[in-house]
């Protein structure tokens, strides 16, 4: 990947982080932000920057990186530039877990992400099971279709759960499904970042296999790849990443779709460079989207997932048109 591309992506991430730390309801000058970050005696500014804005920005980077890498890996593995964890039912499964957690009043911060994670893994297992039952092992089209079916099932499950819930529960669950970084704390962010790093490392380890899979199943098999096993491994690692992001910030759609495409358009060619570029670009996009989400309708916040979808859906349609 050309050096210029790396510079563009890193500059975008730096700009997004700067905006995230400097902008907000409490006006702080860049020097004040700097002082609050490194030492500083203004307790007020330190509290705002270090306990509210910084964990939120770092969580945004982790969520964006996870979604970007997950999308890049899925698109390579499934040979479909429109693949995205949100569209493939993985995020939907995680949302079922989260909503179930909310309706069972598992309000402890550690419980909800765990429930989302279990839901996502169940959805992935179901998708692989459906694909296997259809007899087309590792066929990307069958996997995509199975993902859509499981996603629809997840939606129905959420509706059933919410129809019997109280107003407060419905509100919490809906907010979760619309995506938000509002609950960012250092304790939670640390775990999310760790899992994203783990999932990213797995994808890097599988990058060569994904590269060969991207050539098509027959050429990959001819080059000695166990296609079914490789597809399943890449799919599981990408799903792990997507589940972690849902656990950390709810449903944030279309980042996994948009970012790898932009990175490829900027000149990234190998799977490894697309994954790495999508990690940086995803972080920049989610942090920037969150700045928009928390400033345009102050004092209230917009749901983050709504902002990314407003960007992502036109992009999806444009790509669909170009693919024709």
């Amino acid at each position, binding site marked *: 990947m050309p050096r210029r591309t790396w510079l563009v992506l890193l500059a975008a991430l730096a700009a997004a982080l700067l905006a995230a730390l400097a902008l*907000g*309801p*409490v006006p702080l000058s860049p020097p004040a932000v700097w002082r609050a970050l490194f030492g500083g005696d203004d*307790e*007020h500014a330190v*509290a*705002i920057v270090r*306990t*509210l*804005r910084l*964990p939120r920005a770092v969580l945004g980077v982790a969520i964006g990186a996870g979604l970007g890498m997950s999308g890049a890996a899925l698109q390579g593995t499934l040979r479909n530039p429109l693949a995205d964890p949100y569209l493939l039912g993985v995020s939907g499964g995680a949302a079922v877990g989260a909503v179930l957690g909310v309706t069972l009043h598992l309000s402890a911060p550690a419980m909800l992400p765990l429930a989302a994670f279990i839901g996502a893994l169940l959805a992935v297992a179901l998708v692989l099971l459906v694909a296997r039952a259809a007899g087309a092992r590792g066929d990307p089209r069958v996997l995509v279709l199975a993902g859509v079916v499981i996603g629809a099932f997840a939606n129905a499950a959420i509706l059933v759960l919410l129809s019997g819930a*109280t*107003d*407060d529960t419905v*509100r*919490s669950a809906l*907010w*979760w499904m619309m995506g*938000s970084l*509002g*609950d*960012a*704390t*250092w*304790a939670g962010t640390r775990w999310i970042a760790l899992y994203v790093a783990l999932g990213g490392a797995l994808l890097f380890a599988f990058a060569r296999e994904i590269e060969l899979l991207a050539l098509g199943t027959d050429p990959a098999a001819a080059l000695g790849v166990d296609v079914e096993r490789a597809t399943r491994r890449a799919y599981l690692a990408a799903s792990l990443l997507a589940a972690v992001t849902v656990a950390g910030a709810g449903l944030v759609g279309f980042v996994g779709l948009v970012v790898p495409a932009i990175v490829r358009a900027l000149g990234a060619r190998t799977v490894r460079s697309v994954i790495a570029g999508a990690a940086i670009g995803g972080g920049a996009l989610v942090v920037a989207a969150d700045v928009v989400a*928390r400033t345009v309708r*102050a*004092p*209230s*916040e917009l749901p983050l997932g709504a902002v990314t979808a407003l960007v992502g859906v036109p992009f999806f349609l444009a790509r669909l048109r170009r693919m024709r």
Partner: protein
Amino acid sequence: MYRRPFVLLALAVTASCGGAKRAERARAPGRTLDDFGDTVRAGHGARRIVSLNPVTTELLFALGAGARVVGRTHWDLHPEGARAVADLGDGMQPNVEAVLGVRPDLVLLYASDGNRAAARALHRAGVATLAIRTDHLADFQRAARLVARAVGDSAAGERLADSVERSLAVVRARPRSTKPPTVFWFIWESPLFTIGRGSYLTELVETAGARNVFDDLAAPSPQVSLEQVVRRNPDYVLAGPQNAMRIRRSPAWRAVSAVRAGRILVVDTTLVGRPGVRLGEAARHLRALILHDTVP
């Protein structure tokens, strides 16, 4: 209290929106216009009443009509006698068949859009409904009079409305500072919800002699960001017992200076939770909590 005329004006405007014809019908003797703009034949002394709003359930018992209540919502646990009444579910978008199953001759609804379909269905089934908004302090006085008329005891309604108004006036008459203490009222987290201008709780805070930092937001329960709370820098944070504990434990809430200083006040949520017959007591509770002033 300078906002009171505004509330009355808003009510007057709402009432006039119903159209001249409806107003005419409402003025006819023995008829009442409810908050859905339906006319209700009043004064016939309903015998079997379903009340799908905790405020009106409390009212019915306070008016001595508790024995006539044949259905309530899941949340109507006050007074004690209400617990013996059949639980008909959530109250919002009620199950019409379950309501009809207890054979009511009057159904009291909370006047929100979610309940309009139920009101229509009940009308079609020939059951009278009375939809009452209970969002502001002034709504309580109206609700008391409407419900009293519906059970055929207007005088009791006047007495109840007057006694609640008197106890609020006592709190209102306490000495107040030119710069009242400011409060943030924590309702719900993820996302963070507080109270706004549209809630009786904002009025209750003002009655107690304090000010809600989000009193400029029109919604009854607006969603706000934690950083906005930091910016508006309230003197106190009000929360129910469980939420107060959560705030104390949360690192993010340390950004709010009232929390750092330990100025979290635990509110008796069962007392202030609805604009009902215990409004006076609720105002005294807030006055004692925020201004350390015990009203006799």
